[in-house]
């Protein structure tokens, strides 16, 4: 039995090896002042605040502030740190995790959180009756299959050793497990409240988080107030956050300029971007950061002509990525591989396919399509995606490929992608932002055989069993000391994906958030990789 304290820097190594640091590297902001309240606007209704169900970028960070899981991230970074677990141990064989819970943590309803709540919460999220979109993340935990087929109602791999200790047994070593424990889906919820509200728990959330729900007026506003009993000392800073619902992004920006709003939740609208950046007073309040996102074109490898690797390579060479980046006001960097640059496992120095229409034409001729061919490009119908699709269409036309654009609602594009009826899809607005900062999250659902099934998110329908085997092997390395080896294996996997030219990666979006003049806190809190638009727990107001 190898025993590691949570403070071990090594444990963090596979999260971000380049920045391997101590466990909780966060140093409180010396300028932070407690008190005050802020207003954030959103266009759409808040869907649900049930951590087992909420899975859009709007409620994701709200839920993060209402609930906690065993693991957490250092604010503004992708580095894991313990959450409700004070420390943990991993067995020698990498399949048993023992978490020691923080004593004295209470739910918003006043009851103390115990190991039984962890068992209940993980069983609930994997129970098919909960209909959680995150259930699939827990597949590595022992007993998951029995939950799935309905033969069990408690996840057998999760046991309460004593009120302060939880043991989780995995069916296989999995290096991503601690990240999964930091997902919202793994949040700890109180059984009595979940049962009291039933399907309406998402409207009456009770967790252990830094904020608690104070008011929810349907269609108008959601108000969070500070949880004065929060277990992290001195956090959160703000007394209250008001989320105003139903505000057009353009209107939200006007109100920000008027001083009525502190953060436009939907970001700076594309039509206003240049105006904002051209005005120094406004531009200085804009914060830019990378995000774990890649925009790509999928090509269905099971259908001619995209079953021919040369055709796919030709498409890769035909796309003028710099021009597409200009279309979105330069709010992205051109991509040459599936992983975004800030993701561990990204292959530095890899060049991918350079923009070369002549070479692409030659390659196409070699593949037997000297006269080109006709195909369809599916795209989500909200700006800027149709404009990007038009640029792609023109690039393809330059090498003789006639692509007609099918601009549809998101759900329809996803359906066509899952059914395998779309020859090409521009992923913008739909895929793929990482659920957690690990290279595995970009492989299984969107490039692996598991996602290449009917309805899966692998829209290229690419299934390379060799790569799948290599991926499984890489993820079985849960020994933090060998994390570099694991990341190298992942880097090789993505390089092979690019050799097969399954996608044409186009760009990695950058995030731009704007704040009011009175808001304080480090810039990286405003482009937090896991809390969008901002890490609510750590920002503050200066007046």
């Amino acid at each position: 039995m190898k025993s590691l304290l949570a403070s071990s820097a090594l444990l963090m190594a596979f999260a971000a090896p380049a920045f391997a640091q101590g466990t909780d590297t966060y140093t409180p902001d010396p300028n932070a002042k407690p008190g005050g309240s802020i207003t954030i606007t959103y266009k759409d209704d808040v869907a649900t605040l049930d951590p087992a169900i909420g899975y859009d970028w709007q409620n994701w960070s709200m839920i993060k502030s209402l609930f906690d899981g065993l693991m957490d991230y250092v604010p503004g970074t992708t580095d894991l740190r313990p959450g409700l677990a004070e420390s943990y141990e991993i067995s020698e064989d990498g399949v048993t995790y023992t978490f020691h819970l923080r004593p004295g943590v209470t739910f918003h309803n006043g009851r103390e959180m115990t190991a039984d709540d962890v068992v209940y919460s993980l069983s609930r999220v994997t129970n098919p009756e909960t209909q959680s979109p995150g259930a699939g993340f827990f597949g590595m935990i022992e007993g998951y299959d029995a939950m799935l087929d309905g033969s069990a109602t408690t996840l057998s791999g999760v046991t309460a050793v004593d009120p302060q200790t939880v043991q989780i047994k995995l069916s296989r070593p999995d290096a991503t497990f601690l990240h999964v424990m930091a997902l919202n889906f793994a949040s700890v919820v109180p059984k009595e409240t979940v049962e009291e509200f039933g399907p309406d728990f998402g409207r009456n959330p009770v967790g252990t988080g830094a904020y608690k729900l104070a008011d929810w007026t349907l269609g108008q506003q959601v108000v969070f107030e500070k949880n004065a009993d929060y277990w992290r000392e001195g956090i959160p800073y703000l007394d209250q956050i008001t989320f105003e619902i139903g505000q057009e992004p353009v209107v939200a920006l006007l109100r920000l300029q008027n001083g009525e709003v502190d953060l436009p939740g939907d970001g700076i609208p594309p039509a206003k971007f240049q105006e904002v950046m051209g005005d120094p007073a406004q531009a200085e309040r804009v914060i830019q950061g990378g995000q774990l996102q890649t925009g790509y074109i999928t090509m269905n490898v099971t259908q001619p002509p995209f079953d021919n690797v040369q055709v796919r390579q030709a498409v890769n060479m035909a796309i003028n990525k710099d021009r597409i980046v200009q279309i979105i006001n330069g709010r992205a960097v051109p991509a040459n591989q599936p992983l975004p640059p800030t993701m561990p496992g990204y292959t530095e120095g890899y060049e991918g396919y350079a923009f070369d229409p002549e070479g692409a034409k030659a390659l196409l001729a070699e593949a037997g399509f000297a006269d080109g061919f006709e195909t369809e490009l599916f795209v989500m119908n909200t700006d800027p995606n149709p404009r990007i699709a038009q640029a792609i269409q023109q690039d393809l036309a330059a090498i003789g490929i006639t692509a007609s654009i099918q601009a549809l609602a998101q759900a329809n594009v996803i359906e066509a992608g899952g059914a395998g009826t779309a020859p090409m899809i521009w992923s913008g607005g739909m895929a793929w932002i990482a659920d957690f900062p690990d290279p595995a999250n970009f492989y299984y659902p969107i490039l692996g055989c598991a996602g290449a099934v009917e309805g899966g998110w692998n829209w290229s329908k690419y299934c390379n069993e060799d790569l799948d085997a290599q991926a499984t092997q890489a993820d079985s390395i849960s020994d933090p000391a060998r994390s570099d080896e694991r990341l190298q294996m992942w880097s090789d996997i993505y390089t092979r994906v690019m050799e097969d030219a399954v996608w044409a990666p186009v760009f990695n979006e950058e995030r731009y958030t704007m704040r009011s003049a009175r808001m304080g806190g480090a810039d990286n809190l405003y482009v937090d990789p896991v809390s969008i638009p901002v890490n609510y727990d750590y920002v503050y107001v200066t007046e």
Partner: protein
Amino acid sequence: MAGYLLRRLIQAVLILLGVTFVTFFLLYVLPADPVRQIAGRSATPETVESIRKQLGLDQPFWIQYGRYLWGLLHLDLGRSYLQRSEVAELIWARLPPSLLLMAGAIVCELVLGLTMGIVAALRPGTATDNGLMIASFVGVSAPQFVVGLLLLYLFGVKLHWLPISGYGTFSHLILPSLTLGILGAGWYSRMMRSSMVEVLRQDFIRTARAKGLTRRRVILRHALPNAILPVVAMIGIDIGIFMGGIVVVESVFGWPGIGQLAWQAIQRVDIPIIMGVTLVSAVAIVLGNLLADLVAPFIDPRIRLR
């Protein structure tokens, strides 16, 4: 009258049944699988099937439709797929703001439309008349999205007279009602003008003038009540037009009504909400038309309901 009402109510129920059928069928054949949306991108095929079964979406169309109607009989509009809340509750919470907005719009269109129409009719062929009719033409043709943003920019951003967006006070109501009402004001002014011009040519107006009544009295007491009849009968029909308009206007002004709810639901293909909002709109339109027909004989005794 009672027989007429009964017949109309039976018709209304049939129309609503037809609306539910058409909407349900269209959403059924739509190439978007709600289960996949609920299950999320990391779901296994087993999870997808299990959810499909729980929601009864593995059943044939007629059974699904039958279940929906059965729910309706019990005033159960189902649960939103994505928000996971009761659809009835979501609509109920958003109905009062929409009704308030429509009431505001009716006031705006009547005040604006009738005034413009009367003024134009009293000076037919003059520059005033032409100017007003051009204005009404612009009102009818201008897209509400543009009108809304222009008003918002002028009165909210530049002049700071009115709040940019939101809900709660009287001042919040002004711009959205105006935006929604401008279209109707355009129509009303044109109808009012032609109706008024028509009435002013009638013999009884000449008689009234010949009696030596003041111009003001002739217009307000004799001409107006007769000219206004066809216009008032239109208000019921307006409700149908509003149902389209509120989707845009509520979005622009952040007005928390059912128009916004409908727009969000359509974008996310949240079928139970789309069904619910469509049904509520259909009820409003059917009732509006019924009301317009019922009121007509009171305003114009020449009309009889049989």
